[in-house]
């Protein structure tokens, strides 16, 4: 009896060490019960994601899609990438959720309940492309620090909400307003309540665009928790980090917002191009604004083997930050010659556009299909990695899939 007690106590102490906390009612643990804190959470179940999604990091959660998973015209939740800087909040009580406006450039602080926001202002729905600034980072040489995204940190879902502009007009902002910065309720990885994991924003001109929303619905339903429930700022076409999740506050600033991840190397690139690996002084770094032109072949999945003489249908999406894609071309000869794809117009500004083409291959062998989009300013995607930068942002090199004709 005493020995057994001793064993039990020993196990509880070991379990406590694993958890880093005392198991207060440890004596009452039923047989075979696995403590929640020790269970390996299944992210695919937890976030309702497809099992082919790739987990890059589990603390904080960072999960990306693969190109072929993004074939839908409107990205469903199960294929939408997750990017977090901190810990996803667990207590998002929606009944008393409020959004406050403060900062140097408001006349006075104003707070709205979520209910008021939904009922007082006109609602709009847009398809909006959100791409992580670091999408494609894994290709950088010298390597860049951070989550090693390949191609799947992009989505285009349908967001419903109210215009930030309408609410800013109701709040009343001074003429010296330069920037807005968001504040949210996620917690810093260190657990320090005084630290914000991320507090970014956009210039006032972007904040006042029609498509810049305070969104409370994604694809017609409440926003999933990992994507910002119950309220998210959406600034399509810009690094997705500008679209703050779990939104509690907006500061209207009379200078460029200086919140967490607005300074240093975060979401900033050299103002002038630098050689790969070069050190860049802080004052020579500029904040990323619009994302560059890019495209993704979402069908077929890379690795398709087809029979000789058969044609191959390809399709995918193209997007260009603040701009639109003017044309998409494909090449089956490593960029030596290009043929044009058919390209749809966007559902609305800042939505990605769908392209398709019918390909024929001259003989048996290994091929790569490359896709290259050109934006409305005539700027095309590069075929190799574009300008190197310390944190590995803005890689819009053309997407490639492998095909064998046999």
């Amino acid at each position, binding site marked *: *009896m*005493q020995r*057994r*007690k001793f*064993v*039990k106590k020993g*196990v509880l102490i*070991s*379990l406590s060490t*694993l958890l*880093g906390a005392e198991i207060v009612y440890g*004596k009452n*643990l039923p*047989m*075979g*019960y*696995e403590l929640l804190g*020790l269970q390996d959470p299944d992210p695919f179940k937890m976030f309702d994601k497809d099992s082919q999604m790739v*987990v*890059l*990091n*589990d*603390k*904080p959660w960072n999960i990306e899609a693969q190109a072929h998973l993004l074939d839908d015209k409107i990205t469903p939740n199960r294929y939408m990438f997750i990017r977090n800087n901190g810990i996803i909040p667990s207590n998002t009580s929606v009944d008393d959720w409020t959004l406050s406006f403060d900062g140097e450039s408001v006349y006075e602080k104003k707070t709205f309940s979520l209910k008021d926001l939904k009922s007082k202002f006109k609602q709009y729905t847009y398809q909006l492309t959100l791409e992580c600034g670091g999408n494609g980072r894994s*290709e*950088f*040489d*010298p*390597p860049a*620090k*951070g*989550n*090693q995204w390949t191609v799947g940190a992009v989505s285009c879902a349908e967001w419903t909400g109210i215009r930030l502009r309408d609410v800013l007009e109701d709040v009343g902002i001074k003429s010296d307003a330069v920037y807005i910065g968001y504040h949210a309720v996620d917690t*810093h*990885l*260190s*657990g*320090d309540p005084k*630290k914000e994991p991320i507090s970014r924003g956009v210039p006032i001109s972007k904040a006042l665009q029609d498509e810049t929303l305070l969104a409370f619905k994604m694809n017609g339903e409440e926003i999933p928790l990992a994507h910002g429930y119950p309220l998210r700022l959406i600034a399509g076409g810009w690094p997705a980090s500008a679209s703050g999740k779990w939104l509690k506050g907006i500061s209207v600033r009379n200078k460029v917002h200086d919140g967490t991840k607005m300074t240093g190397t975060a979401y900033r690139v050299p103002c002038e191009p630098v050689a790969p690996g070069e050190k860049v002084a802080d004052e020579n770094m500029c904040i990323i604004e619009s994302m560059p032109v890019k495209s993704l072949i979402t069908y*077929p*999945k*890379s*690795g*398709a*083997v*087809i029979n000789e003489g*058969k044609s*191959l249908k390809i399709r995918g999406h193209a997007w260009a930050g603040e701009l639109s894609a003017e044309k998409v071309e494909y090449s089956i000869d490593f960029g030596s010659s290009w043929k044009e794809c058919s390209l749809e117009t966007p559902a609305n500004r800042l939505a990605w556009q769908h392209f398709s083409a019918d390909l024929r291959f001259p003989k048996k062998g290994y091929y*790569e299909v490359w896709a290259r989009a050109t934006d409305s300013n005539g700027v095309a995607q590069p*075929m*190799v*990695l574009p300008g190197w930068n310390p944190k590995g942002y803005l890689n819009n*090199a053309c997407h*490639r*899939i*492998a095909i*064998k004709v046999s």
Partner: protein
Amino acid sequence: MEDLNKFRKSADQILRLMYLVFFVFIIIAGFLVYLLVDPSFSAFKKNDSEENYISIQNQEVEDFDKIENGIHVRTGFVEGEGLQLVVNNCTSCHSAKLVTQNRMSKEQWSATIRWMQETQNLWDLGQNEEAILTYLATHYAPKKGGRRQNLSDIEWYDLEQ
């Protein structure tokens, strides 16, 4: 003489009383110590079976730091000198995956540690820092990738058309 006898008698009485007080004190102290260790007197209750403890123990405590094929199973870190220091110092705030998916030189790893100390509440690593840096720079060093790499890890499949 009578006085002396009387004195001895009362001294004996006092001594006996002191023994008694001491004995009672020991019993109370012993009881209190037990209460600290087992406040619900669970050692005197017979509602537990042997298997409970064994099943929990087998599940969770065995091989907590198991190494398989040169990989620390729980974290995914490569086995090597300094592994435990890295596990202990680098995985309490963020996942080991944030480390293992990155490749940096010793200088860059060092700069990353400084950045975490300045902005992310990382503590002073003291004399462990050198061993941690050596481990990281040895097992997670940059590889040359060039401007564009070959497509790799292609899973070939027959496309139904």
